[in-house]
């Protein structure tokens, strides 16, 4: 061992300390600038009437008072609560039921559930809602047309109504709920149920008194997240609810910002603050429910046993899965596909691929497709990278850094996309040095990333949870410095989760509507906006074709990724086999 004199060790220790402090400061400030500061704009915006750049803005409580005294606001609150509670409850329960079916029972089609849910998640809500309108609008929805030609009834369904809104939103969030809870159901000790049946309880009693409550944290966690997502969701309430005069926070905020001239920012921000308050309440409620309870009991050898034999009920569940598949995937996507073939939507004559060729020939739409691809891929990458970094900090650090980081990450959850976009626009305008960002694709990309980070954070948390700190410590002990450990161990282990997270994030971004509507610079119209514009201008068929192209592209990426992974695994397996033979 070489003898190193204490003075140089001391110097090195000092330098390391300084560098470390500097890096952390950059991290903290960066996070503050990107996540915390812009959002503080909404508080400011609620009491200052006008753009921050305007020369003489008034400080006023008028907007706030107006918003709070308007009965419309309270109707909105009521509508939002109904939607959040009903859809949240339905989606969570159904998600839990499906997760249970998948992991604990012998229902024949259960293995199809996970792929089904994942595919489902890939259909951005805008496309999905669009499909439902084509299917179920009161006058010429496909379902109504069929019903008319079959039974001669005038109007069979109307999705632009409370019922339709609740149905489609509940259906739409089931995949999310399922995927959030699947792990909990998979990891739960099945002997909990067995203990109940030994104790004399029948299957249903067991399910209700033991199975469901025992996944309490996952259940309430999923419910909270989904409720927050529903609270902020925009597409369905906008396209389905608004025509039926059902206004919720997101559409009402949108209304204040877009439909009134001049825009009523103070009112919009006041509503946004109420949303933030509701989100805080929701999280608080969940924490309260779980307070002082740990749900981890001892787990020994997990009993990997035969799935529960359900008897005839399993055919009922099979039908349920089929209905779900039909309602959530086959019907809406089928409708969009059919629509994309019609020259004039709803007219069954002359079906052709003309819409597709026209899109691909139209330089503007083609550019829009290309741009969306770029923004999604790049934005997804950045979002996933940021999410990994921050989740890592949350996981490995304690005290201020941890609290601060998770707070910063949490902020975008609490804000509807349109408010987020507005807050960032205000922030950019208020900050002298960065005004130039306004109207650039960079700003739109940034906000898209910020909005996507919380979702990626969920994925990153799962990935990081499997990364035991000892794996890194073993690297350090082996003589590798922190950077090398990061490169050769941490990042390498995270690659698979990173790739899947990246893909999801890209899709999420490609389907985002709220942010680009406000921030997209001219010539940088992402597909979601282009499609909505087409739709609103009555060009339904072209919009449908545009959706199909995006989905098709995503499917190709997915297929490629799947094929790569499959062949990779095959290679890996062969390697193991070979090793096994001579080992």
């Amino acid at each position: 061992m070489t003898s190193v004199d204490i003075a140089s060790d001391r110097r090195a220790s000092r330098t390391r300390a300084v560098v470390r402090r500097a890096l952390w400061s950059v991290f903290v400030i960066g996070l503050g600038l990107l996540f915390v500061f812009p959002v503080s704009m909404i508080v400011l915006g609620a009491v200052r009437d006008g753009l921050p750049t305007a020369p003489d803005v008034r400080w006023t409580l008028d907007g706030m008072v107006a918003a709070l005294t308007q009965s419309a606001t309270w109707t909105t609150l009521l509508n939002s609560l109904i939607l959040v509670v009903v859809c949240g409850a339905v989606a969570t329960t159904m998600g839990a039921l499906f997760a249970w079916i998948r992991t604990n029972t012998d229902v024949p089609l259960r293995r199809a559930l996970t792929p089904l849910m994942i595919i489902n998640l890939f259909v951005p809500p805008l496309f999905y809602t669009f499909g439902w309108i084509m299917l179920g609008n009161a006058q010429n929805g496909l379902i109504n047309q069929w019903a008319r030609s079959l039974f001669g009834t005038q109007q069979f369904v109307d999705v632009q109504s409370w019922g339709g809104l609740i149905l489609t939103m509940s259906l739409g969030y089931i995949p999310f709920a399922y995927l959030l809870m699947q792990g909990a159901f998979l990891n739960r000790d099945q002997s909990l149920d067995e203990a109940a049946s030994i104790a004399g309880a029948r299957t249903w009693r067991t399910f209700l008194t033991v199975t469901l409550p025992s996944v309490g944290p996952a259940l309430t966690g999923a419910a909270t997240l989904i409720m927050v997502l529903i609270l902020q969701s925009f597409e369905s309430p906008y396209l389905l609810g608004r025509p039926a005069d059902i206004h919720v926070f997101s559409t009402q905020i949108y209304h204040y910002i877009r439909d009134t001239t001049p825009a009523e920012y103070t009112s919009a921000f006041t509503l946004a603050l109420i949303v933030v308050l509701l989100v805080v309440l929701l999280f608080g409620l969940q924490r309260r429910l779980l307070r002082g309870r740990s749900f981890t009991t001892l787990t020994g050898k997990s009993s990997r046993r035969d799935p529960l034999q359900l008897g005839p009920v399993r055919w009922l569940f099979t039908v349920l899965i089929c209905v779900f598949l039909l309602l959530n995937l086959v019907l809406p996507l089928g409708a969009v596909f059919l629509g994309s073939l019609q020259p004039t939507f709803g007219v069954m004559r002359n079906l052709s691929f003309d819409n597709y060729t026209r899109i691909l020939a139209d330089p503007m739409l083609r550019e829009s497709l290309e741009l969306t691809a770029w923004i999604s891929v790049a934005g997804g990458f950045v979002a996933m990278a940021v999410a990994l970094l921050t989740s890592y900090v949350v996981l490995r650090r304690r005290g201020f850094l941890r609290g601060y980081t998770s707070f910063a990450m949490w902020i975008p959850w609490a804000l509807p996309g349109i408010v987020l976009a507005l807050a960032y626009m205000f922030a950019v305008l208020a900050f002298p040095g960065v005004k130039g960002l306004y109207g650039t694709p960079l700003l739109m990309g940034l906000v898209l990333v910020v909005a996507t980070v919380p979702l990626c954070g969920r994925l990153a948390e799962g990935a990081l949870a499997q990364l035991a700190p000892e794996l890194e410590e073993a690297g350090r002990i082996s003589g590798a410095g922190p950077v090398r450990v990061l490169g050769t161990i941490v990042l390498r282990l995270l690659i698979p989760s990173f790739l899947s997270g990246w893909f999801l994030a890209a899709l999420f971004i490609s389907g985002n509507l709220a942010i680009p509507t406000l921030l997209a610079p001219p010539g940088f119209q992402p597909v979601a906006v282009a499609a909505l514009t087409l739709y609103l201008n009555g060009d339904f068929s072209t919009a449908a074709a545009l959706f199909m192209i995006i989905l098709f592209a995503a499917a190709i990426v997915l297929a490629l990724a799947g094929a790569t992974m499959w062949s990779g695994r095959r290679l890996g397996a062969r390697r193991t086999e070979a090793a096994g033979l001579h080992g």
Partner: protein
Amino acid sequence: MTEVRVSGMTKKYGSKPAIHGLDVTIRSGEFVTLLGPSGCGKTTTLRCMAGLERPSSGSIAMGERTVVDVANGVFVPPEKRHVGMVFQSYALWPHMSVDENVAYPLKVAGVRGGERRARLAEALAAVGLAEFGDRPVTALSGGQQQRVALARALAARPSVIFYDEPLSNLDSKLRYAMGQQVRSLHDRYETTSVYVTHDQEEAITLSDRIIVMNNGRIEQDGTPEELYDRPRTAYVADFMGFSNIVTGTVVGSGSGLVDLRVDGADLVLRGFAAEAPGSGARAALAFRASHVHIDDRDSRRPGSFDATVVRSTFLGSAVNLLLDANGLTVRARIERAELERLGMDRPAAGAVLPFSVSGSGAVIVPSEEAGAADAGPADEDAELAVVAERHAVTV
């Protein structure tokens, strides 16, 4: 108090049978342990009895009632069998308090009001947790959770209780104490108990009878003493802690003892045999490390040999020696009392000493020429590597 009779029970997973035509009778009030290595089918047997698994063929009766008869399509589900079960993971319901956990079987059984409270209190008192009723189960230590699981299994006074490795999550000290409690509750409530473990010490300390299983079949069945002293096969011997099993050829026998010339080493060892194989027959000799003693007699007899100490490990009350006797690796355990009696220090590595194997302790078992390698699991390489290393070094 119920007798459990299993006849011709087979359980297949897919086409792979995990249990092959098992016949077992567990007498009323008996404490029977199923013992065997991982994957031998213990849990499957237990779960079939409890109703958590459906046998592929055969029948099971509990007391007067046939609960499974595959040929006649009888299958009584677990909730109708009135049994209790303690799971390895305890399977306590994390969303319920201790009280709620223990009272659940009573509640389901429709026991109400005062009686429920009384029986709950009794069950908790029996496991010494009377004061913990209000606690969430997650706020208990491992041993306490274990006791809640016991109380829950007992609460509805089932006639049969099944235990699937209930102690394997506890540390060794606690394990012993909890095992004592399981047994004491069995005695007190006079239930019939079927207990699964892969730990021979646990099986020996707790059971009235031990059933050693191997690959879905019964290998040996007897009292703890019988199994501890007189394993009938190399498999059982290995499992019961006979850490030396050597094969050889019978060279003589008399008065229940048989002399065996050990393969590959110029050594004759002696051991007990229930039925003496004829001279020249192949056989194996199994003996415990504690059957090896330092030989202080001058004369050489069958069973004595000189050996080099390869490694000496202090155990506190005894010393473990790894010996090389003419190329044969022997594991010995010498009590400190013995060393003191002989006035010896702890033998150091490299020392050459005379040893002998107690002929009344060692047992002759059928030689399993093919199966012999299986008996010592692959992971013993670790220790054997030490011997190999020594040879490499001395070469």
